[in-house]
């Protein structure tokens, strides 16, 4: 009879939580993409062995408390301003790996000026952009990225583009800027997508060391609470509705 303790051995280990992830329980809703993306960033930092060289900037939004989960030095920015903080950190400490983690309300609405200009200056930073088409933390209001016709608490009859404008494909704008080196759009809804997304994050962090410009990764994400769908249904809805507007793949680099 094989005992459990006989199985728990170094040679049998197939998966372990990254040392960069803390033991704090995520406050994210079950099914939310944030947790997966956090894990991928943690793994990249661990694999590159850059914990002591990483400075992270968290936004205002659901990931405002991201600093509870990754054991690196963090600065918690005002809403939309993370790229400005990241700019200064990178300029003042050029040997550091600086990344800003932002949602779509933070990056594509209130922080439009900061993201465009940081990318245009080609700041030597990584931007992780979580796009779930909604304001999650404040309770599901319309975001700049909300799809046409999509109901939210501030567009209860669906987004009317005549009233509220069109979904903002800010990553397409970012890719036009000469200051950006690598611009990609990823997702984390399947194991294959997760692996691809991790590769993209790794590439972005590796590029930072080379100092050739800004690295920008959009992760098209689910907000099953805000969308009022189960985790499985939310993934299906994302593939069906979000991907046609925000198609996955590299836009640059």
């Amino acid at each position: 009879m094989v005992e459990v303790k006989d199985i728990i051995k170094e040679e049998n280990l197939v998966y372990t939580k990254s040392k960069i992830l803390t033991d704090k329980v995520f406050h994210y809703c079950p099914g939310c993409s944030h947790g997966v993306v956090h894990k991928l960033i943690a793994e990249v930092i661990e694999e590159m062995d850059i914990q002591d060289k990483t400075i992270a900037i968290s936004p205002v939004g659901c990931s405002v408390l991201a600093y509870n989960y990754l054991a690196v030095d963090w600065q918690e920015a005002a809403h939309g301003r993370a790229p400005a903080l990241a700019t200064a950190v990178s300029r003042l400490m050029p040997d550091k790996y600086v990344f800003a983690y932002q949602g779509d309300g933070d990056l594509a609405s209130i922080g439009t000026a900061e993201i465009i200009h940081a990318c245009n200056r080609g700041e030597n930073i990584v931007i992780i952009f979580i796009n779930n088409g909604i304001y999650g933390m404040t309770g599901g209001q319309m975001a700049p990225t909300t799809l046409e016709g999509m109901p939210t608490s501030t567009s209860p009859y669906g987004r009317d583009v005549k009233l509220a404008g069109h979904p903002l494909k800010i990553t397409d704008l970012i890719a036009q800027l000469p200051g950006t080196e690598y611009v990609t759009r990823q997702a984390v809804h399947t194991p294959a997508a997760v692996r691809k997304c991790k590769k993209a994050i790794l590439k972005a962090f590796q590029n930072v060391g080379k100092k050739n410009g800004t690295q920008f990764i959009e992760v098209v994400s689910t907000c099953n609470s805000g969308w009022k769908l189960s985790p499985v249904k939310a993934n299906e809805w994302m593939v069906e509705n979000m991907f046609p507007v925000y198609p996955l793949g590299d836009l640059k680099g």
Partner: protein
Amino acid sequence: MAEYRLMKGNEVIAEAAIRCGCDGYFGYPITPQSEIMETLMLRKPWEETGMVVLQAESEIAAINMVYGGASCGKKVMTSSSSPGISLKQEGITYIAGAELPCLIVNVVRGGPGLGTIQPAQSDYFQAVKGGGHGDYHLIVLAPASVQEMNDFVALGFELAFKYRNPAMILSDGVIGQMMEKVKLSEYKPRWTDEEIQKISGSWATTGKTPDRDYHVITSLDLDSAKQEIFNHKLIEKYKTMAEKEVRYETISCDDADYILVAYGSSSRICQKAVDLCREKGIKVGLLRPITLFPYPTKIIQEMAKRVKGFLSVEMSAGQMVEDVRLAVNGKVPVEHYGRLGGMIPTPNDVVKALEEKLINVK
């Protein structure tokens, strides 16, 4: 060998920043203070001391760059004028809430709104009472000469780091634009990484090393009980400042019957007004607050026991006068005299106001 030069107040801010070992300046152009960034760009301190100078896309971005830099334990600053300082208030309250040291220079112009580009002192409330949301204060220094524009850059950083609190130089268009002889400071090198570790290593985000826990710079606490404890900590810090950091200058106050209270360029005008009064046989003195926060309340309380009245002279509709009244607490009359909208009072205007509002009152 001391170095003397004839310089504009704004130019001196830039020169003093380089010489005091400032690590970074982040700004956005606005009249009447654009010479600060222009001087820095001409001087190219990144070649000399390694200081970073960056023109941001907005005042909002500039103050948030200061937030990022200050979080790393670096000596960082920004400058602007009134409308731009309003835009910076969000960043300033985050910096105060995260207890970070930095220097903000406000070369005040008339308002409200776009107002005028001429000098004013109408941002007193904004500077000393908080400015942004939440309970906080800045350390506020009020230079009255180009020399003090030089001296207060290093002093502002010193106090900011001593208390982990943002400091502001509250200047105005007169002091920023006028040229005077100035004795420049000696060069001090920028802090090394080791020095930053020694000074701010317990909190700065310099990269998590195995010997310490990771650092988080934030002004957020979702637990109200903890937030209240933090608010009390700030109050205690401000009390300590009030005990230890009050700075002021008195001129001819010992035998004075009346006290003019004025800071910055108004205090220069009032110096002449004191002379004119003395020639007329009126015993007038000048109290010049140098720190506007913490405010020289105690000396005003002392003076209120022996003088007949105070006249607060400001280029505003009457802002600092409220702090004078709070200190005097009804013991003697306190009046306000000011010009507005970029107009500057003359010494004779001040003498006339003193006579009308305090001396010849039936």
